[in-house]
């Protein structure tokens, strides 16, 4: 009952989050399919050696690792930092997910996408080779939404491929890490996910007491290990059972905290088309700040903004939030979602309903970031439970 309760995992949606088993894309001739390996290779690396390996990567790539920042209130929030000359002292490869999702590396908060009046027909993209150590299962699955929206699929033709996302996606190595602890707000298993990645990574790290199992997920991930045989060992049966035990215990922990938010019937199309009152109730403490959109690994929306710049004008692409009143505003003052409750409804239905209808993806990965970020303490697990329960009453 508890598992997958937000999603009707019927036959029409074999993978709730839509990451096809053989890679990211629907088309066969795509870079990511080429990256998939027939059989995943596994090796063991000791803790000290892993740090050395990361140090070696930093010679050829920009490398980001999760570190803990001591913030004013002493809360230790892991988030990404760039590896410079030495590895940051507070590097943290275990525990729960970093504050930012992996989207930040392929979809910048602000990025110049055109200079005009005179500009090249070709896109001028800055996408240095980057290794991101730290995305969790939820982050990796979140990237699937970017691939759907920004890359040609059956929904979009090639002429609509977005060079700014694609080139960064192609130049970004994903080194995912199994969660070894769940935050109170994590609910990945309720939306068909797992607290570890099984596909869509270049390398995956499964932290153990004395080191990590490194799983190779792509040819180029294998390339990150090339020349570092001195640091690697063979995986033993003990390593594997330690990993499996860890994975099972985190999965169980997430399942346990999901139980209190379980709804009677599985979610189906239009179940979130509930009464205005139900949405108004869950929106009471929302201030429309859009933090939930910004931290979300699957919020892909943006606004183009033009301004004067050296030699003419520049157009930048900026993260946008569907919680803001201007988002759906049309010329002359029209607005298809003038009320905040309509906009919060739009956000949650976008995740569970609209993207599913459009892309076959439920785009909430259960990462819990929107709950962590909300100053109104709006918990989407409670919100959905409330809306579906109210709907069932009528």
């Amino acid at each position, binding site marked *: 009952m508890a598992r997958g309760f937000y999603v009707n995992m019927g036959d029409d949606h074999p993978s709730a989050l839509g990451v096809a088993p053989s890679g990211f894309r629907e088309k066969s001739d795509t870079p990511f399919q080429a990256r998939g390996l027939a059989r995943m290779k596994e090796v063991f690396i000791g803790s000290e050696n892993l740090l050395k390996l990361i140090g070696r990567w930093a010679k050829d790539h920009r490398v980001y690792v999760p570190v803990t920042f001591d913030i004013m209130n002493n809360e230790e929030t892991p988030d990404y930092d760039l590896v410079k000359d030495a590895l940051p002292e507070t590097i943290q490869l275990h525990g729960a997910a970093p504050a930012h999702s992996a989207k930040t590396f392929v979809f910048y908060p602000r990025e110049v996408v055109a200079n005009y009046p005179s500009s090249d027909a070709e*896109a001028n993209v800055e996408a240095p080779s980057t290794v991101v150590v730290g995305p969790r299962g939820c982050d990796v699955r979140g990237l699937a939404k970017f691939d759907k*929206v920004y890359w040609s699929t059956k929904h979009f033709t090639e002429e609509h*491929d977005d060079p700014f996302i694609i080139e960064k996606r192609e130049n970004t190595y994903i080194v995912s890490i199994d969660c070894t602890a769940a935050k109170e707000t994590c609910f990945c298993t309720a939306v068909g996910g797992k607290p570890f990645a099984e596909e869509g990574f270049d390398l995956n790290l499964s932290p153990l007491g004395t080191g990590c199992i490194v799983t190779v997920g792509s040819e180029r991930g294998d390339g990150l290990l090339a020349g570092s045989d001195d640091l690697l060992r063979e995986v033993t049966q003990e390593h594997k059972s330690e990993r499996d035990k860890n994975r099972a215990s985190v999965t169980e922990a997430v399942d346990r905290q999901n139980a209190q938010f379980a709804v009677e019937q599985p979610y189906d199309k239009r179940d979130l088309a509930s009464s205005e009152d139900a949405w108004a109730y869950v929106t009471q403490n929302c201030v429309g700040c859009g933090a939930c959109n910004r931290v979300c690994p699957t919020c892909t929306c943006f*606004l183009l903004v033009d301004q004067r710049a050296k030699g*003419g004008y520049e157009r930048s692409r900026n993260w946008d939030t569907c919680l803001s009143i201007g988002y759906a505003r*049309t010329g002359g003052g029209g607005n298809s979602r003038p009320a905040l409750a309509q906009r919060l409804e739009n956000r949650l239905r976008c995740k569970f309903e609209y993207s599913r209808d459009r892309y076959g993806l439920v785009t909430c990965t259960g990462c819990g970031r929107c709950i962590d970020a909300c100053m109104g303490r709006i918990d989407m697990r409670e919100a959905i439970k409330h809306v579906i329960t109210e709907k069932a009453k009528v």
Partner: protein
Amino acid sequence: MKNLYRPIESVIEDIKSETPNITTYRFRPKEPISFEAGQFVELTVPGVGEAPFTPSSNPNITDTMEITIMAVGTVTEALTKMKVGDTVGIRGPYGNGYNLTDFEGKEILIVGGGVGLAPLRSLILALFDDVDKYKKISIRYGARTPEDIIYKDLLPEWAQVKNTEVLQTIDQPHPKWTGTVGVITVLLDDLPLLTTVDVEGLPFSPETAVACVCGPPIMLKFVNIALLEKGFKPENIYHSMERNMSCGLGKCGHCMMGEFYICKDGPVMTAAQIAEFDDPF
């Protein structure tokens, strides 16, 4: 890779005032942009921003493009300050237009409200280029006052085109107006009669006719109801949908309505496609 977000430099070649707040601009893009009737472009006022517009000129003319624009806000007001010879940016075309082959042999009802006649003008001009292919073209246009009527000089010309009629109304009585008065739906009242009675010798049969509608949301709503009542099939009623748009490419999310991107699946959408929404307009 090609840059999707790059505006193509376009010079303003002509400016014609239609009403106190509506103007038709003719642009000459440095790289030709060809479009289908009903598709739209993103127009850039340099340094100010972009806004979506459906060209109002004949889609069979590709070296220049006309757009009829009502000044309502930041971008459209900034445009009114520009002069012949100034440069703007255009990218596109985007979205789905009308599939004219579906219209062949049929009666075509065109319903425009206010500046909503502008996007329909490119359709009308495309239809006129092949006027013999269509059984009848009936243009029904509503404006608030006689001053708000656009294409004042063109409407009488259109009425002279073979198999074409033009009916007009204004919302409120006006000393200078001798024609029909009332909101646009008054021009649809006679439709069921047209199946049996000739009006100006031109019969009309809603079951097989197509309707192309463009105007403010409230108008779309009531015209949609009226046409369905008259017996038009939902799949034959084509609405020009308006939503906030930023990219025009199905990426930025602004135009989304449920699972639809109006910029890709629209802006022209049939009443059948949007039937699942309580209030799509």
